[in-house]
């Protein structure tokens, strides 16, 4: 039995059992389940942040100590990188691999600039005395939760940049655009999720 016949045999074995719940792409379903788990992780961090803040008597007013302008710019940057991500997928759908790779690169670049700005913000705040166990403006847990949540998110962006760079290779290695469409769409799901989480983090940790 060749690989192709095994493949078709598997398909004919699976297809009769399909229900309305069967997804179009199992990879996509897998990514969504992973993202749901990851979202619970972020949800726990943010709920914990809320609980610590609500029970603290000397929690500082975040937008007065954290500098909103740079973070607003970072938010804007991440939204832009989400747009370049959907554009990359759109070009891939039209069969233009060169443009798709270009836009994947722009997306990765946006992520890189985001992490760089975060590093700049962190070093600035650390310089002003905000540490993971120290906060010159009140509750120590403010420093702890700030570095924990933004760090956890920054780690996701870093991972996302590596993921996107590997997707550039993936597209470049496949002569047919359609062969990489599904994988790029799945990587896009991860990238938009990181953007979505930042929208939440920005609101709950910087603005509220």
């Amino acid at each position, binding site marked *: 039995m060749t690989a192709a016949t095994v493949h078709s045999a598997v398909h004919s074995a699976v297809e009769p059992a399909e229900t309305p719940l069967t*997804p179009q792409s199992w990879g996509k379903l897998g990514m*969504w389940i992973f993202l*749901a788990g990851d979202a*619970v992780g972020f949800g726990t961090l943010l709920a914990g942040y809320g609980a610590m803040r*609500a*029970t603290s008597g000397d929690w500082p007013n975040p937008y007065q100590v954290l500098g909103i302008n740079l973070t607003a710019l970072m938010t804007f940057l991440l939204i832009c990188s989400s747009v370049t991500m959907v554009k990359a997928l759109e070009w891939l759908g039209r069969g233009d691999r060169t443009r798709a790779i270009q836009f994947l690169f722009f997306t990765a670049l946006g992520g890189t600039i985001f992490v760089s700005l975060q590093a700049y913000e962190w070093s600035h705040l650390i310089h002003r005395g905000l540490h993971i166990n120290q906060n010159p403006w009140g509750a120590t847990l403010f420093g702890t939760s700030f570095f924990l949540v933004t760090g956890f998110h920054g780690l996701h962006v870093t991972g996302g940049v590596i993921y996107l760079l590997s997707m550039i290779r993936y597209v470049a290695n496949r002569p047919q655009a359609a062969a990489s469409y599904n994988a790029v769409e799945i990587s896009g799901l991860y990238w938009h999720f990181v953007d979505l989480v930042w929208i939440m983090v920005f*609101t709950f940790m910087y603005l509220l």
Partner: protein
Amino acid sequence: MAEAHKHPSYMAIFWYLAILTVIELIVIYLPLAKFTIGVLLCALALGKAALVAMYFMHLRFETRTLGWIAITPLVIATLLVFVLLPDGFAVLKTTEDSRKPAAAAPAKH
């Protein structure tokens, strides 16, 4: 043409997101009660998250299964807040109790 109908203009979504972010930045400086500002910010953030999930992540055009998976963590996180509240009030009570004697005798320190 069908493709264009399936995926709405991504640039339009981009502008919605940008405008909602600007509104968020304006809201924090509005002369409103802290609670009102909090509710407004939560609503704006959820609106932005919904736009990203529905259009960028194509959730609007997916099977319902994926929608249920996506909504689950939101439900869990919301429930978690209520789970943490009793703990929070207990901590708050303890800190308030420990502050009372200190307020009664400020000369101690």
